[in-house]
């Protein structure tokens, strides 16, 4: 152990400030390396090889993977707060959707005169509802920088207000989960209304371009994909930075013994509030990157089920490990894409089964299971070795 540390010390100068975060985090190192590799190889293969080449990655696959990366960032934000602070928020679907709406509003304003009604100032749905002027909260969204600030600011502000109210009055545990769910539900109902000025049921769609580049072109898609991968790496490093710091340790102590931490003199609610806001902003970024790749944002994203699904990604990947959340999000979503295509009927059975089985038998997720097999203790590893022996004996017998 001590030996390790000295090696780390000597490495520090060579590695630079960002990479030091990954020291001693094998999973994180692999994840970041894999992400960097994907971020370069996928767009490269998409753009450089012709479509009939075996190395070609189709734009569809690229966009799909980009979508998974956004989900992974979302899962990361949930893991940050659930895994490290024990707060199970069922409102992260809402933060994700709010970030998405902020981006969607920018993309909507970029359509300009190319809409069906050709109105340079108003988006189509407003013309359709025969509105005269742009509502005040749409001002500024024609500027990219403003929209990007809002992507962070809107989820952040909501998290601040909501968290400040909730944590100050010590709403904890299940109660917090239920009222965040109520919040998500209320937002969904609100965004479904046409009067809100966010396109109602249909949401925002028919986007044309971003920063002047055509959204349909493979190049733009590649850049968006690259940006998603980078955002995920950035989110991972930030989360790692927070959890490694002293603040991160206080968070873990809040998770494990909130009362005791409070009695030790820490202002528990401020720590919780901080991590809640950071987490909400990460979710907002994920949403903002998701929308231009998928091409639509509608109130369906606010459905309470979505928020619960995010929790299950984290639970399956492995709570409290950060890279586990990324693995879980990608694994579950890949399975979802595959099974809804192949056996649509079965998917809900499978997802439901995943919820039940993972909570019963994989309390620490995939990451925890792999770890326990390596260390050779726990139910899972006994099962693993039992099966291995059986297979070996069958092979030996044959």
């Amino acid at each position, binding site marked *: 152990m001590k030996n390790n540390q000295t090696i780390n010390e000597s490495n520090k100068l060579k590695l630079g400030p960002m990479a030091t975060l990954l020291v001693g985090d094998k999973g994180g190192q692999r994840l970041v390396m894999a992400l960097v590799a994907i971020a370069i190889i996928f767009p490269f293969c998409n753009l450089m090889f012709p479509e009939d080449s075996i190395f070609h990655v189709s734009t569809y696959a690229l966009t799909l993977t980009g979508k998974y990366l956004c989900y992974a960032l979302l899962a990361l934000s949930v893991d940050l707060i659930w895994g490290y602070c024990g707060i*199970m928020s069922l409102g992260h679907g809402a933060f994700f959707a709010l970030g998405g709406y902020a981006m969607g509003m920018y993309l909507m304003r970029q359509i300009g005169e190319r809409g069906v009604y050709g109105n340079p100032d108003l988006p189509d749905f407003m013309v359709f509802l025969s509105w005269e002027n742009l509502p005040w909260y749409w001002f500024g969204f024609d500027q990219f920088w403003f929209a990007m600030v809002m992507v962070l600011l809107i989820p952040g502000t909501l998290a601040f207000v*909501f968290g400040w*109210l*909730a944590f*100050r*009055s*010590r*709403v904890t*545990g*299940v*109660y917090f*989960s*239920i*009222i965040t*769910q*109520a*919040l998500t*539900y*209320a937002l969904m*109902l*609100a965004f*479904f*209304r046409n009067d809100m000025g966010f396109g109602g049921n249909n949401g925002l769609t028919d986007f044309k371009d971003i920063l002047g580049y055509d959204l349909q072109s493979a190049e733009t898609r590649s850049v968006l994909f690259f940006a998603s991968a980078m955002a995920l790496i950035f989110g991972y490093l930030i989360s790692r930075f927070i959890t490694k710091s002293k603040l991160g340790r206080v968070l873990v102590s809040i998770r494990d013994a909130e009362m005791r931490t409070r009695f030790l003199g820490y202002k528990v609610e401020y720590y919780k509030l901080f991590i809640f806001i950071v987490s909400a902003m990460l979710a907002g970024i994920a949403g903002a990157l998701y929308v231009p790749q998928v091409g639509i944002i509608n109130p369906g994203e606010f459905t*309470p*089920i979505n928020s*619960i699904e995010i*929790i*299950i990604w984290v*639970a399956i990947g492995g709570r409290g490990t950060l890279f586990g959340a990324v693995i879980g999000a990608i694994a579950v979503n890949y399975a979802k894409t595959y099974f809804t295509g192949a056996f649509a*009927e079965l998917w*809900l*059975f499978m*997802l*439901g*089964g*995943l*919820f*039940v089985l*993972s*909570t*019963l038998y994989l*309390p620490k997720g995939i990451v925890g299971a792999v770890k326990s097999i390596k260390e050779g203790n726990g139910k899972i590893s006994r099962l693993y070795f039992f099966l291995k022996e059986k297979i070996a004996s069958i092979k030996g017998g044959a």
Partner: protein
Amino acid sequence: MSIIRTLLICVLTLSSVMALSAETISQQVIATSAEPKKATDSFQSSVNKFPSASYVEKQQLIDIIRASKNERALELFNGILSGDIFYVKKTNEVVYRAPTEDRKFLVTSFSNGKEVGLFKKRKLKKIGINNSLRGNLKNAIAELQLFSEILEDRELAALSILKTASSDHQTLINSALKFEQSNGEDEYIIEVLTTSKSLIDLKSEDPVVRLQAIKYLDKSLYVETRNGLSGFIDHALINFDDYNQAEITLAKTTLDDINQLMKINAVIENIYFGVALGAVLLLAAIGLAITFGVMGVINMAHGEMIMLGAYTTFVIQQLMPNHIGLSLVVAVPAAFLVSGTVGVLVERSVIRHLYGRPLETLLATFGVSLILQQAVRSIFGPLNQDVVTPDWMAGTFTVNAGLELTFNRLYIIIFSLMVLVGLALVLKKTLFGLQMRAVTMNRPMASSMGIKTGWVDALTFGLGSGIAGIAGVALSQLTNVGPNLGQAYIIDSFMVVVFGGVGNLWGTLVGAMSLGIANKIMEPMAGAVLAKIIVLVAIILFIQKRPRGLFALKGRAVEG
């Protein structure tokens, strides 16, 4: 002698034969000239003329039939109005039709009810009517019904007269009033008819008649009265010279009075709707109050237990299609058993392993809810199922002319209170309830006293789920029965429990009722969706003030 005798016999037989034939002849004469027979004929011949008549001729035919006062005239008019009466194109015979399995129609004659045969659709044609005929038919029906033997028919007819009251009806109303006074003395009908009469009188030339009419209309809550009075005031203000000041002021104050009463009515109605919504929420949440409140288990599959109850109702109705009213009664215990059994199974197989880990329980039960949803979707299909409402649930009950309350809501309110009382009795008065409370308060102590805590947990969860199933029976009468039924109620139920406070049936009752009433009172002002959002936000804010709800448990059990 013998000759005389034979002659006599001959004369006698002859005379008897003569007499007989005379009798039959006279009978025939009487029969043809008899009044009813003739009316039937004119009715029948008019009916037979319908298929080939033009609209103008049809109008005349309606008048003839109306005048004939034939007992089947009403049936005919109603049939034509609702488009149930057809004619065979080839023979112009007026018929009813009923679809058969091989896309043909079994046709029966209107006049004698005999079967005419099987016809294809295009061989039959509806008796066509236009809008003016439709109005005439309605009037004719009203007139026939006004003098009907059946009280309900007369009531309906009086109301339909009220809706279309015009000066044409004046004589009809007067004679109907006379008929009523001499015949039935039914106050309600007399009131409706007099109101119609007064409304017509408002347009009269004579100020005295008008004044009397306005006086009569005081506190009359029919929509028509308000329309009539405001129309009268508008008209009077324009043609000021024809009216005197007194009657205009009187009309205005009368209208104001009526509007005031209508406002009170609206408030009562909203509160009634609110209490009914509260009763639904209470039914949905009360099972949750047990599983969440007593056991501390977050059961996200609670909504699906409700859905299972609703589907049980559907299945029971399919099993006994001829006893819809009874099926609902049977469905209550059946739904309790089905949902309760599923609940016990879920508890034994999943939740048992997760006690003390509420967040994991939430996830696992959510998984269970997805599985149940998909299971129901696979078995019954994704579409909504048609659950029939029995006759005794339908209908309204009239408080006053401006306020009618539906029976099904009333039943739901009564039913949910019964469930609440029943549950309270189970908790307080039975051994199981005692054991349940003991386990809630102090598990190790209860266990050391010989209570099988594991089974108490399972049964408690079963009880909570079973009550959700009962809620499903009630909800099947109010909303669509589909795989997503449960999801619509789960968040509301949680809100009720969180708002009312955990582990307290009173809290659930107060929580459900206040949420229901708050929702319905705000609805007219803000719209349904916004009202719901406001209520949700209000609860979120309320939780900040009292994190454990209205009626919170106090003491050591709180931190857990």
